[in-house]
């Protein structure tokens, strides 16, 4: 039989606040479940508006997660593997969306890609208008979610180190082969959990989306926006949809835990 040793005791006062903190997080979830109108749950979550919002959320979050991987993996590579003056500052700036209020991010995007934004006239000339379109939703989500992937992957890259990469190069493998056959497999757990976190963050995105993309049903009104709007007119529908998001979030956390446990 295996006995767990506890060589160092925990301060006794820690248990109380820990319990309060746990309750503080879990109780609201219980409150949501308790508030759900179960008799109409089916029809509430399958109404046209709900279905449109759900699928839009799923599609845009998937797209933004892919975008996060496509842009974030190279960013993490450069941040973890290169050293140049200003790297520290650059890292902080790139991770800014982690701490920036999403509304501010949305405004910033609007003044960059909006019709009167920094690049607006150039995009206009090309016949592209991104603001208040589904593309804008994806951009807003990518903006806030990418730092999660970059942070997670950069940590994995640093932990993995370069020793295996050096051996692989000495065996004749070019940088792309080393990346594909050695680096990616070694940091796969970090990459997966980073992608899952990005997906979760995209799914919950609200502030940047409503500022930059607006709230047009079927085009830019994602699940969080739908919940916020329904809260005014049909609280039961809002609660039902909220529960859907809670379930998705729980699933995502489960996935992230599994991918962390892998290897």
């Amino acid at each position, binding site marked *: 039989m295996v006995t767990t040793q506890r060589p160092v005791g925990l301060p006794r006062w820690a248990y109380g606040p820990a319990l309060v903190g746990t309750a503080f997080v879990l109780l609201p979830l219980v409150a949501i479940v308790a508030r759900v109108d179960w008799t109409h749950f089916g029809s509430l979550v399958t109404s046209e508006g709900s279905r449109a919002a759900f699928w839009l959320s799923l599609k845009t979050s998937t797209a933004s997660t892919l975008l996060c991987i496509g842009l974030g993996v190279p960013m993490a590579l450069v941040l973890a593997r290169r050293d140049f003056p200003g790297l520290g500052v650059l890292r902080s700036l790139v991770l800014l969306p982690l701490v920036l209020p999403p509304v501010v991010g949305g405004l910033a995007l609007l003044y960059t890609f909006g019709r009167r934004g920094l690049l607006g006239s150039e995009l206009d000339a090309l016949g592209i208008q991104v603001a208040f379109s589904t593309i804008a939703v994806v951009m807003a989500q990518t903006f806030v979610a990418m730092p999660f992937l970059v942070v997670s992957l950069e940590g994995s890259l640093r932990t993995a180190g370069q020793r295996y990469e050096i*051996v692989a190069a*000495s*065996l*004749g*493998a070019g940088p792309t082969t080393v990346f594909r056959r050695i680096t990616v*497999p070694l940091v796969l757990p970090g990459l997966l959990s980073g992608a899952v976190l990005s997906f979760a963050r995209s799914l919950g995105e609200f502030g940047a989306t409503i500022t930059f993309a607006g709230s047009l049903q079927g085009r830019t009104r994602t699940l969080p926006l739908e919940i916020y709007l329904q809260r005014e007119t049909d609280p039961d529908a809002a609660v039902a949809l909220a529960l859907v998001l809670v379930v998705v979030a729980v699933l995502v956390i489960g996935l992230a835990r599994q991918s962390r446990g892998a290897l």
Partner: protein
Amino acid sequence: MEFVLAERDVDLAVEVAAGETLALLGPNGSGKSTALGVVAGLVVPDSGRVELGGRVLTDVGPGRAPVRVPPHARRTALLGQEPLLFPHLDAVENVAFGPRSAGVPRATARATAQDWLEEVGVGELSRRRPAQLSGGQAQRVAVARALAAEPALLLLDEPTAALDVAVLPALRQTLRRVLAGRTAVVVTHDPLDALLLADRVVVLSGGRVVEHGTSADVLSRPRSPFAARLAGLNLVAGTWRDGCVESPEGLRVHGLVVGEPPAPGEGAIATFRPSAVAVFREPVEGSPRNAFEVTISEIEPLRDLIRVHAGSLHADVTVQAVAQLSLEAGLRVTFSVKATEVAVYPRS
């Protein structure tokens, strides 16, 4: 290969003939690993030139168009202390990595890899993951992996240092077999590695070459303190005067001249085994012996003997002798060694 690395105070010029295995010996911080890094393309020197079979791999310095061939295009495979097998690939895929990177089709690369695994004696372990291999097995797979990449130059960085003593002799034999006729550089601390694996030895100290020659020559007639320590010999360096080696500290050592006698006033080396040294409490009379007045600095056990250190000299004596003479650190004693036990030869 010749290069200068001002930052680490390394300035070397070393040449390896095709098909020859060269051992780089030297104390820690002498520049051995830096030298390997420069050849492998992992370290860029301040100035210097690395050439491999007529191909310039590195050429940097003032007034030159810099050449820096990236590590993967140099054909210099690295084998380190640790096997560093790719953890997500099984043994045969690890070995097939080099050929596959060179564009060999998967099936062919696997067949080649299997042959290499057989060659180093672990053919039956091909489907094992690195985590399922012992240290010795993993190092054999790493040897196979390095060879399968068909390097023009094999770089071995203390390949036997991290291994269990029990598996060491067998792996050394394998390395000896596969290195025969191959161009390789071995960095090592182990005199046995130098003797068994290398044709020639270069001894580095403080980032400079202090000694070079065939392995047997360097270890039987060391000219640097480090090589003498590796060979387990006492070394007194000085000038040849009146038929003896006179050291700057004033030691005068008589011995048997090996080969050509040194010219008077020329640099000369005297070496003798620590077990040939006798220790006395009283000054010694009698001419056939060399006698040195020394102060014991340290006493340490050495298998069934006791090693008595006195500065750079040491004597291996029995436990009984230590007890009878009550030897201890700080004591003034006389080290005595017969002239017939001392080899004397020119420094260069």
